[in-house]
């Protein structure tokens, strides 16, 4: 049976708990390369950590988790996203995806894109963005670690070669 035609607006892009979105619900030593989940989440705080640099706390963030494949088209200012759907994978350019989805997502104090950027693309600021947009350079991985101090919650960390702000 041929798969049904699909538009960007019809993609199953849903809100998820932040730990689920970032694949942090199961205990593991290292980030998994088998993870293909995607969606968006509200986070009270996430830490963006560049290689060799100090992590920067981003409060009240809208975190958008998506994937690029290692054979994705290399683009200077865009990313070819790949979404694993139940019946097949599809790709879509990040610019088109964000133009379609960002206006309908809740407003937060910052937007964090958790998307691997293997070709170091310098993204354009999405037209619908009204707050700082943080996007990675290089591969992105998610982590959690016990928070210092009295907080009972783990810190959620996103690592990359670098983080750029639009």
């Amino acid at each position, binding site marked *: 049976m041929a798969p049904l035609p699909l538009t960007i607006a019809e993609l199953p892009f849903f809100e998820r708990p932040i730990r*689920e979105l970032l694949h942090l*619900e*199961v205990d593991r030593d290292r980030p998994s390369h088998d993870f293909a989940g995607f969606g968006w989440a509200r986070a009270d705080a996430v830490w963006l950590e560049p290689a060799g640099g100090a992590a920067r706390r981003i409060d009240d963030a809208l975190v958008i988790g998506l994937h690029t494949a*290692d054979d994705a088209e290399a683009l200077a200012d865009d990313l070819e996203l790949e979404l694993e759907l139940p019946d097949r994978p599809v790709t879509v350019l990040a610019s088109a995806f964000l133009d379609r989805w960002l206006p309908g997502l809740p407003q937060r104090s910052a937007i964090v894109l958790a998307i691997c950027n293997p070709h170091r693309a310098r993204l354009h600021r999405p037209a619908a963005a009204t707050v700082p947009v943080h996007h990675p350079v290089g591969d992105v991985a998610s982590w959690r670690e016990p928070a210092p101090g009295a907080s009972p919650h783990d810190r959620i960390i996103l690592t990359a070669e670098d983080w750029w702000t639009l």
Partner: protein
Amino acid sequence: MFKIKLLAAALAVLVMSGSVGCESRSDRVERWATTENTNVKLDWDKVNEAYKQASGPEDLEKRINEIYEGDEVISIAVHDQGDKTQVVTGFFDKNSSGTVDEGEQIFTIKREPTGEGTAQYQTMGYGPYYGYHSPLFSIASGMLLGSMMSSMFAPHYVPVYTRPYITPSMRMSTLHSERSSYRAANPARFGPQSQSGRSYGGRPSISRPPAHIPSGGVRRGGGFFGLSRAGRVVRPERLSA
């Protein structure tokens, strides 16, 4: 769609046999209570291999429950669809309904023919294992396979589970006791420190060197936001609108 078909088929089984449907509700919930533990690793390499080697659904559910290190018993549903496609669904039958209900599914394995004497299968995680997505595993006639998989290459293959096999609720206690015996026989892996909700080790899923992994022992890993797809022949469709 699959779920609806599965449910309909399962209901048909219940109506036709009557045996499960006649059990009292209280009997069923006493058999095996799930703890809804969602923090237990599932070794996907072993799950994928179990499907490849299983002789049939009962053997597969036994193997999978030996792999799973939590307290719950994993039920399976095996559904043969047209053209030798088979879908195996793993689920926690929390309500002992004998069907795959909302929120119970934890994985699916889909096997599809790709040509004469060849096929592929792929595993996807759901619920607490949402996000796991195996590579496409190629199989072919002549490979060392269990009969559950190799039968599709038989000259006169007839799908057996067009009406799905679903782990009978009466088998849950058997699976549990078999698994207890298995764990007792493997103390190195299932020592007294093992309790539901903890990690039991297992191989980290690393298939390529990450760009930036910080040192430090207290951090726990999540996932990478990249997919390993290099070498594939067919690129996915790109959506433009």
